[in-house]
């Protein structure tokens, strides 16, 4: 929401401790794919960019070992339900951990099924594992971590 950077979406709303079903995400960012900016930027974004509503759910997890297919499925199902209710076209699930994910966990995330971008960031080693779908790759390309 602050400073520049490569563009993934215009996030305009942030909420701490966002509750989704019985889960609480540390941060939920909401926005759209249309930039605001000055006159020419607005005209350009109006004609060139799609007007998708987007959301990014960020959660800290104690360890990457808690990630399993059920763990991801539960979160992604809730995210999909919310996306359907509120017409959110692009959604990301961003997990932050302190330890190195195992090969199994990395594979699980990389193979992420569905359209949602799933990312796992290791704060200690600053490494990122991401789903190899469009949104995962897009977020990976735009992040400066």
């Amino acid at each position: 929401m602050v400073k520049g950077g490569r563009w993934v979406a215009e996030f305009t709303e942030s909420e701490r401790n966002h509750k989704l079903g019985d889960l609480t995400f540390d941060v939920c960012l909401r926005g759209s794919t249309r930039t605001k900016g000055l006159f020419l930027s607005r005209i350009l974004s109006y004609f060139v960019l799609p007007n998708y509503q987007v959301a990014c759910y960020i959660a800290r997890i104690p360890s990457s070992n808690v990630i399993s297919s059920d763990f991801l499925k539960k979160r992604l199902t809730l995210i999909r339900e919310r996306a359907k209710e509120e017409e959110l076209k692009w959604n990301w699930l961003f997990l932050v951990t302190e330890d190195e994910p195992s090969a199994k966990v990395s594979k699980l995330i990389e193979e992420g099924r569905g359209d949602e971008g799933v990312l796992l960031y290791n704060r200690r080693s600053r490494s990122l594992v991401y789903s190899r779908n469009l949104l995962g790759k897009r977020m990976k390309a735009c992040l400066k971590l």
Partner: protein
Amino acid sequence: MTEKISPIRFFEIFKLTVVFLAVQMGATLVMPVWFYDIIRPYFLFFTVTTSVLLAYFVYIRTRHLELSYDGTGFTLKRGKTVETRRWKEFHKVLLVRTNGDFLIRLQDEEHVDLPVSKLKLDPFSFRMKTLGFVEGSGSGINRG
């Protein structure tokens, strides 16, 4: 303890001053010549002074912001408009960015925006403070 924030936004006064200055400059075009001849030696001084005074007056009447808050609620004065609310009336706290300005959006069925950038507050720390007030007020915060 009540905290009060009411910074003077000099840039707003400047913008209004420029508008009033332009209006007065334009007014010379329709002014009787004899009157213009009288005021001409003092014209610049007169227009600048009146523009600044008018701008300050209009700013205070319509645009000046004052926020006072404590653990139970807040009062937001926008010019002559006053809005007093309690933290417990809200269940959701959002940080919103609109064209470079940050707002704290307090949501219930309706929402109230606290213009933190205009109040020269740090949006991120004030959001946490507000969240603390709303959660502490026992509003049964629903973060969904």
